[in-house]
């Protein structure tokens, strides 16, 4: 399948290894991955903070960058849900019928990585080897907006050597919330403290998720505490093998 990679601005700028891992996994499975250079940001941060006028051109540029792809993959459940949930509203609000029409055909082709792998391509064993104790944090937008279901668990369970441990109170928010983490930093930190405590109770070496935004938040607290627990995007675990370094 010819797949367009929407890497997201955050992963592009701060976590390029995740993007590389997505390419590695999909190519290993025989797909053709392309990175349209016209892509930038989906506009979620601006939309969610109340800057809809700034988000609208980002939605337009997303559509024009990806309209020709059969499938679009993104390593972010949150950015995928922005396209699914709020692009139609943005287009309607702007009275842009052409954009609304394009969004209605494009959004169903935008998949978060674990959904593309486990549900669309129907592959759970992606040939990964990762001999570590890992716990999985289901991010809120993946869980409740995009509803990725058990796709990440199926993928992780099929990774050779991986010891998947259940995260207590897994479905609780990590307290990130985009600009919430700065606007309400005390509450955000208080929520994060409980998430980090739950992660540490699992004695996992790695906590993984489908969103680098939440992982950046959780990871920021884990390193501040010198916890010795690493954060990794799901894609990076799925890309790992026991073969020669790539």
């Amino acid at each position, binding site marked *: 399948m010819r797949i367009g990679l929407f890497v997201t601005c955050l992963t592009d*700028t701060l*976590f390029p290894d995740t993007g590389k891992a997505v390419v590695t996994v999909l190519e290993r499975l025989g797909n053709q991955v392309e*990175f349209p250079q016209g892509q*930038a940001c989906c506009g979620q941060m601006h939309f969610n*903070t*109340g800057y809809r006028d700034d988000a609208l051109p980002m939605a337009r540029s997303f559509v024009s960058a990806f309209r020709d792809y059969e499938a679009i993959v993104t390593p972010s459940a949150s950015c995928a849900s922005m396209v699914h949930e709020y692009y139609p509203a943005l287009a309607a609000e702007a009275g842009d019928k052409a954009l609304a029409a394009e969004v209605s055909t494009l959004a169903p082709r935008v998949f978060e990585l674990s959904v593309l792998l486990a549900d669309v391509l129907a592959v759970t064993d992606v040939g990964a080897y990762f001999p570590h104790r890992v716990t999985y944090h289901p991010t809120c937008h993946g*869980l*409740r907006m995009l509803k990725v279901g058990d796709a990440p668990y199926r993928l992780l369970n099929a990774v050779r050597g991986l010891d998947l441990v259940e995260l207590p109170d897994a479905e609780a928010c990590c*307290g990130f919330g985009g600009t919430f983490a700065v606007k309400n930093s005390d509450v955000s930190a208080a929520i994060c403290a409980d998430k980090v405590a739950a992660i540490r109770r699992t004695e996992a070496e790695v906590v993984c998720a489908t969103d680098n935004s939440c992982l950046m938040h959780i990871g920021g607290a884990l390193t*501040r505490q010198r916890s010795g627990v690493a954060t990794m995007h799901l894609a990076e675990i799925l890309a790992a093998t026991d073969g020669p370094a790539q």
Partner: protein
Amino acid sequence: MSMPTYLGMPAFPDAARKAVADTQLRRNLTHATHTIRTKRAGAVAELSDWAELRQAAKAIKDHTLANLDTYLLRLEENVTKAGGHVHWARDAAEANEIVAKLVADARADRVVKVKSMATQEIGLNEALAVNGIQATETDLAELIVQLGHDLPSHILVPAIHKNRSEIREIFRREMPDAPPGLTDEPRELAAAARAHLRQEFLHATVGISGANFAIADTGSLVVVESEGNGRMCVTLPETLISVVGIEKVLPSWRDLEVFLALLPRSSTAERMNPYTSIWTGVRDGDGPKTFHLVLVDNGRTASLADQTGRQALRCIRCSACLNVCPVYERTGGHAYGSPYPGPIGAIISPQLRGLSSPVDASLPFASTLCGACYEVCPVAINIPEALVYLRAKVKHSLPERAVFHLSGYVLRGPRRLAAAQRAASASRRIVARRGRIRRLPPPMSGWTDTRDAPAPPPESFRAWWRRTRS
């Protein structure tokens, strides 16, 4: 003593900062919210048709709201036919004035009250006090709040922020007839309140209630409760005054069935609430001799005109959204500066009061948008959607607008984004140590006070792709 008030409350982040640091509050809230959350999940899981009930409730409310004028007039007609009197109040001041006059007409200087969000919303107790009328709350938790000169912090459990030893202290200090040697055993506390309230019930000539539902077809009012105090208030006094928001009307008894299945399980995690009182006008020799229904708008018509905002009018005040909210769990209700706290309060309060005060302008941001509230809402109010919609209506500060317009300009242009990424990568050795950023200037210091920030990588994904793939 002056009454506590929500007026002049600080913005949510400031109030929340204090709440987060209050160890006793945190302990009380964690315990209470987790207990009720778990119980609710169990009560809801018992019904295989929960999702269908929820959709039915949403559809009934939407239909009723779309035809609100019809059903309200029908309600008025049938209440009047049954011997009741209907009053219309545009806003809180009008509603308070009507109630104060009705109480004065009944020659009463004290009233007993059923727990009611509408009367909290309009500040009825304070308005009655100005008119020399003492209102006594008879719901146990509301009584605790009232005796403690405190404010409610939860829609259903207004004293959720107090534990039993704090409650004992309030009773010993403020309840003249508290038994000597009162311990903090819940049974003893309840018995003390019961004995105290019994005198109030027997002497009151006017009762004031809200209503969970009003049935247009028959002009019947419905109050659901757990303690029996509501039953006393709506049956013992000679005059009953019910203050009800106009969105509480339901067309028929068949519609009520759906809500009586949803409400108790969502709020108290009970299959059925212990007391459901339903009355229709007045009748000779049974219950109040006079019944007044005060229908309150207070901003509801304006909300109804708002396509995204109107869904909040479906709310049945169950408080399930408060109990699952990660923010409410850490801050409690007072930080929201309104009788309506939690996720639903963050929508309703700005809708009813506008977005001009610091606290109202901050409420739409008092959420991580995690969506747990929407998931449990029995009438499917998309709270995150309504919150981000309100965020767009808030007047943002000038520096914030500058930051967002500039970042928007960068983030919508791939070339500009690439240039910003190159600049970030070039700065990595200056801003970061060992791959982490430990400290950033305000407002980003809010992040780095408790969390590291990641250092920019040597090259962005985009640059890597260009270098290796194209």
